[in-house]
């Protein structure tokens, strides 16, 4: 249609020329691919996801039940302590949660120590805390020696494997002042924190590996960007072809 016949009115959805119509169709195709690729995939992730606990949480759940029921065995304190250390090893923890987790780990360590060992443990932890307080740098010889002395004690109490990262974390989280009691409010918050940090949204898309990545991560962080560049490149090629075909000069 000649634009003059239409009094120069136009809109994207009502193109007035053949070239504009082709351009509209091309733009719609690209926008559709773009939108489905970005938002469609995230919606699919959302639909497929299921709250999935880490193995540490499953271990914790059973052991904590026994502890709360007043029928714990040594393994229950060890399992729950290991699970709490799993959370404390995570980089970003809410300070309130860290406080209650420290309380839980310290209390469980105290429960695991037997007889006179309880006071020895408390004294060792207290000594380490004093050294840590006065130390400026973490490579300080006294600090390192005190920490290395405490690590095997706690590894043994919590029954950790020698190459388990949690063994290195334990001395920094066990506090002498938090060993003897763990009140009801703290216990409630502790259970809440364990669920928060140890249950994740997972699905087949997050568990499947591609080029070393979890697939969903690869798709969003790598593939989508390739797609964007590809779409732009294709659009320019096709626009150049259209312009040549319809004799459009830039």
């Amino acid at each position, binding site marked *: 249609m000649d634009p003059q016949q239409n009094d120069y009115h*136009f809109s994207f959805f009502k193109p007035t020329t053949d070239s504009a119509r082709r351009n509209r169709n091309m733009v719609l195709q690209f926008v559709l691919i773009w939108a489905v690729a970005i938002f469609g995939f995230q919606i699919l992730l959302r639909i497929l996801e299921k709250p999935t606990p*880490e193995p540490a949480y499953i271990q914790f759940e059973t052991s904590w039940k026994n502890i709360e029921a007043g029928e714990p065995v040594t393994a229950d304190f060890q399992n729950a302590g290991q699970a709490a250390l799993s959370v404390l090893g*995570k980089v970003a923890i809410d300070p309130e949660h860290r406080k209650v987790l420290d309380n839980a780990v310290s209390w469980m360590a105290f429960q695991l120590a037997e007889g006179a060992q309880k006071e020895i443990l408390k004294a060792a932890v207290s000594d380490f805390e004093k050294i840590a307080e006065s130390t400026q740098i973490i490579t300080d010889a006294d600090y390192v020696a005190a920490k290395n002395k405490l690590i095997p004690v706690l590894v043994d109490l919590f029954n950790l494997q020698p*190459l388990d990262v949690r063994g290195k974390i334990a001395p920094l989280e066990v506090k002498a002042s938090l060993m003897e009691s763990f009140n009801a409010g703290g216990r409630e918050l502790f259970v809440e924190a364990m669920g928060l940090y140890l249950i994740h949204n997972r699905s087949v898309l997050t568990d499947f590996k591609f080029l070393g990545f979890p697939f969903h991560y690869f798709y*969003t962080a*790598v593939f989508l960007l390739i797609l*964007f560049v590809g779409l732009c490149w294709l659009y320019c090629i096709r626009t150049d072809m259209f312009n040549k075909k319809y004799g459009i000069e830039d």
Partner: protein
Amino acid sequence: MKKILLPLIVLSFPSLLQAATAATQLEGGFKVGPAIILITILILFVMVGIVFRAKDTTDFYAAGRGISKVGSGMAIASNWMSAASFLGMAALMYGSGYHGLAYVVGWTGGYVLLLILMAGQIRKYGKYTAADFIGDRYYSKTLRAVSAIIAILISISYCVGQFGGIGLMFKWVMGIEYSWAVVIGGTVVLTYTLISGMLGVTKNMQIQYIIIIISFLIPLFILTAKFDYFWLLPQIGYGSVVSDTISGLPINETKELINSLGHDYAIVPAPEFAMPWDPPTGKTFFQWIAIAFSLMIGTAGLPHVIQRFYVVPKARDARWSVVWGLFFICILYWSAPAYAAFGKILSAHPEVGTLAKDAIVVYTAQLGNIHPLIVGLLAAGGVSAAFSTVSGLLVAGSSAFAHDLYVKVINPDASPKKQLLYARLGTVLMAIIVTLIALKNFALIGQLVAVAFSLAGCTIFPLVLLGIWWSGSNKSGAIAGLITGGTISVIAITYFIAGKSGVTLPAHEFISYWLEAWYFAWIGAPLAIIVHIIVSKLTKETPLEIRKFLIEQVHS
């Protein structure tokens, strides 16, 4: 220029070597090596600015329209890759895991919209600035003035994050207070922008791109090689780092892999780093979608990005410069998540303590025991990224001030000399305002920059989109749409500032969630478009000469 720079580098070399041990601490202390690298790069920028300085107003605003499409693509990338990309993205992923990828997708996906909906048409329209386009398309001096003011606000908001990034890097290098670092860094970038103008800026941007990308990639190659991942393509090799973070890494039996503080390269299972909208991050599915969407439409509405299409000779060059620009941008965006992943493992030991997220890129390189000079180059790259964007933003803001406000509204007879004087005055004023806000340190760099995107998405984007693609879009519709988008923006930003100042407004929690400052465009932009269309339909149609111009010049 070589005559001056080479002796400087040669003379500084002994100091660089001597400085190798001084920069091993994560924080504090003046780091000689990185400081010399930073100063050398800044001198290089200023000298390029002097050599290619603006000679008249056309040069100042649009670089004489003589930049090639690859060159313009590099300039687009450099202009785009700000402190938010260089430092902020890794910070967001380090802090919020998969949620941070919404920023990666948002800041790249918007270019597809920009290309297919705007780039060529804007160039064909043939104006200098976004406000110029809006004022002309909507035949309204008022809209031109309002758009110019919005462009200035967007530039200021965008610059605040950049000044924050410059401050952090100057603080790290010089071991000084954050406030002083912001003031010193701000003064240097202002001086440089005043000397060079857009022509120098564009040339500089190409050099800056090369510095930014090299400084960002070298440490990544080293990190992946050092920690035994596929180092030939670290952008793929870090996939295993992400998987290791999810499944957990036991302590290495041989004890070979340690960070610079002597901690094992090990971590407990941390699926929260990569699982979508994971509960401990406190982020939701809605927020992911809203951020990605807001950033994408914001990209297509940012005045300083739109303005870049005026510096290429033809519409075809404008289109291809987007392809090149996006490709150059993606090289950095494919790499940034790797820093977050390495940072997560290297800082996993509680003894590392809480690190400033916005400096995680530099801390990761330090913790990875990379040579201090390379870490210094990385920090200098971060400063370059902020510089390249700030200079472009200051030019865009000062263009809005001098060209769109002063010349087109206040004094149409102003001489080119006076116009240039006002452009420079505008630049100084903006820099002062930005410095004052940056000192407040309101949020993460990436989040501060995202505010500018939502603002652009609610205001400029609907005007440009409808202005190009619908002849029925008229002045009344534009004003109504702008009021709608502007109102949403004011509400969101008011609640944000109130929250940061400790003031609780009515329905604070509700508004802060649904209209958070970094993604309020998810609703603001669609509402502005709807109101714009309804009011346009109900009021007097667009004048014939504009409709004719659109068909014959823009869409022919």
